[in-house]
C-alpha cells in the first residue's frame, strides 16, 4: 500500500512500523466491578521518513491511544512498534531513554503542556536536559531551533505566558525539534488555533518536514487539515483501522461507512474550503 502513495519519491525508508497494536483499559470503581474497555485492537500501519500519516475518526475511536502508545506514554498490551529498527513496545524505561529523542509529541492544549513558571529557554531545553546535554549545547540548540520556528532568539529569556497562542505553538514545536527527532506525533496539535494561525503553523510544519525528512503521525478530526498535510489517511472506528490509503483516493472514494459519515459531516460543516484540491480559500 505504501508504494503507490503519490509523492513517494521524496520519502525514504519505513521509519515507524506498527504491527497488531492492542491496548485495553480497565475501568473499575474501588471494590470490584472492573470493566475492560478495549481502546485499540490490532492496529497496523507504517510511516516512512518524510511522510505524513493521518489518523482520523470519531471521538473515542482510539486515535489518541495509538499516539500515546507510539510515544510510549502508555505501554501497549500486545503488538510491536518498530521505530527505526528497534521494537520499542516492550522496552523498559531505562532502555527507552536514549530512543526517546527520536520521537517527539506535540500536544493539543499547548498552553498547559508547558510549565507556566518556565522561560521559553527552559521549555525548549527540557528534553535535552533530560537527555543530559551540557548547558552550552542546550543553549546553542535552543537558539538555532527558535530561529527555525520563526521566533526571535532574544525571546528565549521570556516567560512562557508572555507568548501568544500561535507563538506558544511554535515554542512547542521548537521544543520537539530540539532533540532532532525523526518522527513527530501531532495529537490534535492545531485544533485550538484560529484559522489563520493554523495555516501558518501548518506551513511551518510542512517546511520543517521537508528540511529534516521527518515522519509525521497526525491525529486530527479536521479533514481539511488532513487533506492538506497528510499523504496517507487512516480511518479508525471503535479501536480498529477500517480504511487506509492515499489521502486523495480515500476522500474521493470512501469505501467504509465510517469514512463516508466523516466526510459527509465535514462537507456539511465546511463552506469555503475545497476539499478535493486541498487548497484553502
Amino acid at each position, binding site marked *: 500500500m505504501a508504494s503507490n502513495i503519490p509523492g513517494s519519491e521524496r520519502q525514504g525508508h519505513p521509519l515507524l512500523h506498527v504491527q497488531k497494536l492492542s491496548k485495553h483499559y480497565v475501568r473499575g470503581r474501588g471494590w470490584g466491578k472492573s470493566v475492560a474497555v478495549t481502546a485499540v485492537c490490532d492496529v497496523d500501519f507504517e510511516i516512512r521518513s518524510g511522510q505524513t500519516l493521518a489518523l482520523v475518526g470519531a471521538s473515542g475511536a482510539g486515535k489518541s491511544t495509538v499516539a500515546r502508545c507510539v*510515544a*510510549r*506514554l502508555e505501554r501497549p498490551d500486545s503488538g510491536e512498534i518498530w521505530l527505526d529498527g528497534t521494537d520499542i513496545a516492550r522496552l523498559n*524505561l531505562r532502555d*527507552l*531513554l536514549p530512543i*526517546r529523542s527520536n520521537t*517527539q*509529541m506535540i*500536544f493539543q*492544549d499547548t498552553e*498547559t*503542556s*508547558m*510549565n507556566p*513558571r518556565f522561560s521559553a529557554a527552559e521549555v525548549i531545553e*527540557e*528534553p535535552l536536559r*533530560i*537527555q543530559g546535554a551540557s548547558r552550552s549545547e542546550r543553549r546553542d540548540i535552543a537558539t538555532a531551533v527558535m530561529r527555525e520556528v520563526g521566533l526571535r532568539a532574544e525571546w528565549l529569556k521570556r516567560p512562557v505566558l508572555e507568548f501568544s497562542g500561535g507563538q506558544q505553538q511554535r515554542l512547542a514545536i521548537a521544543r520537539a525539534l530540539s*532533540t532532532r527527532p525523526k518522527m513527530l506525533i501531532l495529537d490534535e496539535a492545531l485544533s485550538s488555533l484560529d484559522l489563520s494561525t493554523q495555516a501558518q503553523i501548518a506551513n511551518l510544519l510542512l517546511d520543517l518536514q521537508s528540511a529534516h525528512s521527518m515522519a509525521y503521525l497526525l491525529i486530527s478530526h479536521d479533514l481539511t487539515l488532513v487533506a492538506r498535510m497528510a499523504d496517507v489517511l487512516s480511518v479508525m472506528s471503535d479501536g480498529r483501522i477500517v480504511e487506509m490509503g492515499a489521502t486523495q483516493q480515500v476522500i474521493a472514494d470512501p469505501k467504509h461507512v465510517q469514512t463516508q459519515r466523516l466526510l459527509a459531516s465535514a462537507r456539511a460543516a465546511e463552506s469555503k474550503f475545497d476539499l478535493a484540491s486541498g487548497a484553502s480559500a
Partner: protein
Amino acid sequence: MRAKTAILIVALVGLHLTLLLAGFVAPCDPGAQDRELPYAPPTRLHFVDASSWHLRPFVYRWNAGPDGYFEDKRQSFPVHFLTSGPAYKLLGIFEAKWHLFGVDEPARIALLGTDGFGRDEFSRVLSGGQISVAEGIAATLLALLAGTIFGIIAGYYGRLTDESVMGATELFLSLPWLYFLLGVRAFLPLHLSPARTFLLLTCVIGLIGWARPARLVRGIVLSARSRNYVLAARSFGGSDFYLMWRHILPEVLGLLLTQAALLVPRYIAAEVTLSFFGLGVNEPVASWGNMLSTLQQYSVLVSYAWLLAPAVALVVTSVIYSILADTLHSRLEFRST
C-alpha cells in the same frame, strides 16, 4: 513596597536579631541570682534629679523595706551604653563582654523586675526567647520536612501508598493535640540535659505535626501530577525524581512558606505549654514556658505582674508571625490559580 510590608519585615528582623543577640542586648547574666532582691519591681529610669535634667537616664538601688521595696535616693547610677558587663557567648560560640547597656555595681538595672531568685527578668525573657523561638522554628522545619516527604510520596505514587499515608495522617489528626503531646512526652525521659531536652522536644512536637502539611502537600502534588506539562516531561523521558524535583516541588514551596509562618508560633506555644507543665525545658535554663510556670501560684500571679513579661513577649511574637502568615497567604495563593 507597601508600608505595611515594610513594618512587618522590620518587626520580624528586629525580633529575631534581638533574640539572636540576646547576650548583648541583656544587661545581666540570666542565671545570676541575687538573694537580696527577690521579686523586685522594674527599675525606674529617671531623667530628672534634685539638681537638673539629664540626657542620660539614671537609676537608684532598690532597698528592701517593711512595706516592700523603696528607692535608695542617696546615690544615683547613670546608665551606660555599650558597656562591658558579665561575660556571655555570642551565638553560643564567641566569648564576649560587651552589652548594649548596663549600670555600675552595686546597682542592678532590671527593666522588667526580678523573679523569686532575684534574677533579671529582662535578661531571662531574652535568653528564654532564644530557646522557645528556636524550638518553634526547629520543630516547624522538622514537621514540614516530614510532611513534605510523605505528602509527595503519597500524592505522586497514589493508590495504596496514598491510602496508607492518608490513613496515618487521619490517625495523627484525630487525636487532641495536647493529649497526644503529653502522651508522647510521658513515655520519654523526664530529666535530661538541656541540649537533649531541646532535641527531644523538637522531635516530639515536629513529628506529631507532620500530618497536616502532608495532607496539604499531597493535594498539591495530586493536582500537579496530572498536569500536561508533567506528562510532556515524562514523554521526554523524565524520571520520577526529575518530575518531582523540577515540576512539582516548586508548586509546593509557596505552600510550605505559608505553613511555616503558621506553624512556628503554634510550636513555640507548644514548647511554652510543655515547659509550663514541667515537661519541657527545666531550670536552670530559662524558657518562656518555665518562667510562666511560677505564676501557677496565685500569690505570685497577683502580686508581681511584671512576671507576665514572657507572656507578652509570646503574644508579640505570635502576632508578628500571624501577620506574616496572612501576607504570605494572600501573596502566594494568587499565583497558583
